[in-house]
């Protein structure tokens, strides 16, 4: 028997706020969280603007001793998961902890834990567990007392979406009742920034309004960011039985791999389009039902162009019908956490019938001629919302959400 899968809790921390409510308000208002780097590890960081989480957020929400040896990704994941679990109101006795799993993706893990240990020549017992890519998933399971499956699926910046999609499959096929799924990352460690900069993937200027500008003709790269977003998923029966508030249903999940290049997307977006088509097939809908696409839209020349070609391929002659937006214009690129945050924003979009804008757009690249929601959000009744996430390595993951 297959189960329908619904979302009953959400939590997030990002450069535009420390909880879902605040993030959603800021998204609606087109608030930009990109700013000069407040807490760099050193003064030789090759970028001046980043999407940084305010350090007061972990300090207020976690114990000092929990933060000290942990990666930022792990701290963010724990904060987001706590919010999502409280929001889902999973009280004791209403669920079986042995049938509750966790999948929190991270692409970088604790880069700054590695940096600090190596540069201070202080390799202590927390060096490995603190920096590990699985640490966010492990710590969230510990906080939640979740004894089911635990995986930290790694697929670069598509990771948060793959985690949610794979968690959805687990519940759909009856392998777990509840899943805590999402992504957590920090791209702000000194050496990770240097590495991305060496790839010429980053915006290195100091003009916020020209920094993270997805689909703009002047885009020059992404702005490194950080954060986490976590969803609580459960089977529809399970949610109904315990009287949970249901935000939305996961209608479809599509995936593919470019199998093309270590970092560059396939230029024609062919396999990204296949992921979108698979998601629509899984949801059993035609493209005209998708009101809105929450795009991957990183602001790199290659990604945005390939994504738009993929949308054209997947949606055919009606490719300009869905409203397209990229919240990375406000958050910067939170790596795997962006994929999960974009799922959260997609769900809020459905809930409120409001599509948030792509800000700082001055002149849309003619090679990216999708129907962009430019600079101001719009109220639109949404039917199905698609969220695209792609990652270096050719990873493509697409989720479709609808109201239950």
């Amino acid at each position, binding site marked *: 028997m297959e189960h329908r899968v619904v979302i009953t809790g959400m939590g997030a921390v990002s450069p535009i706020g420390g909880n879902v409510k605040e993030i959603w308000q800021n998204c609606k208002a087109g608030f930009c969280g990109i700013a000069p780097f407040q807490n760099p590890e050193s003064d030789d960081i090759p970028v001046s603007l980043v999407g940084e989480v305010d350090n007061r957020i972990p300090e207020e929400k976690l*114990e*000092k*001793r929990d933060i*000290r*040896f942990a990666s930022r990704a792990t701290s963010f994941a724990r904060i987001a998961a706590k919010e999502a679990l409280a929001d889902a109101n999973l009280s004791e006795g209403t669920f079986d902890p042995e049938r509750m799993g966790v999948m929190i993706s991270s692409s970088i893990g604790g880069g700054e834990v590695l940096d600090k240990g190596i540069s201070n020549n202080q390799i*202590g*017992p*927390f060096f490995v*567990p603190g920096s590990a890519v699985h640490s966010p998933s492990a710590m969230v399971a510990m906080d939640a007392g979740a004894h089911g499956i635990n995986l930290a699926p790694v697929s670069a910046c598509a990771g948060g979406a793959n985690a949610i999609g794979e968690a959805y499959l687990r519940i759909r096929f009856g392998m777990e009742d509840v899943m805590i799924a999402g992504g957590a990352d920090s791209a702000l460690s000194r050496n990770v920034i240097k590495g991305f900069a060496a790839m010429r993937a980053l915006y290195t200027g100091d003009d916020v309004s020209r920094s993270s500008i997805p689909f703009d003709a002047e885009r020059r790269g992404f702005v490194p960011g950080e954060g986490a977003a976590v969803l609580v998923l459960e089977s529809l029966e399970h949610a109904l039985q315990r009287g949970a508030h249901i935000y939305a249903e996961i209608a479809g999940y599509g995936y593919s791999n470019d199998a093309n290049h270590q970092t560059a997307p396939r230029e024609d977006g062919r396999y990204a389009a296949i992921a979108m088509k698979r998601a629509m097939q899984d949801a059993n809908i035609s493209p005209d039902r998708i009101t809105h696409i929450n795009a991957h839209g990183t602001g790199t020349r290659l990604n945005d162009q390939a994504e738009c070609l993929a949308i054209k391929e997947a949606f055919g002659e009606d490719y300009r019908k869905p409203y397209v937006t990229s919240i990375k214009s406000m958050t910067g690129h939170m790596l795997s956490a962006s994929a999960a945050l974009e799922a959260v924003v997609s769900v809020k979009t459905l809930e409120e019938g409001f599509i948030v804008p792509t800000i700082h757009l001055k002149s849309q690249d003619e090679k990216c001629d999708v129907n962009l929601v430019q600079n101001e959000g719009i109220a639109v009744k949404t039917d199905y919302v698609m969220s695209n996430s792609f990652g270096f390595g050719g990873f493509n993951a697409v989720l479709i959400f609808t109201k239950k």
Partner: protein
Amino acid sequence: MFLEAIRKAISEEFFVDESEITEASRLKEDLGIDSLASMQLILDMEQKFNIHVEDEEVMEIETVADVIALLEKKTKEEA
């Protein structure tokens, strides 16, 4: 001397109030210092007193008094 050093390390590394740390304190139960954290504590002590603690010796530590006894033994041995 050793008690002061241990107190300082535990409060700096794990944010436990120094006044809560006595010789009788159990690392895990009273101070929340689990196996990994106790290894960090021992690493700090090794560096501070220039000693080397064997793996088996770390496993036997349960209280602050145990750490003090270990440090006394090690500093004598290596003196």
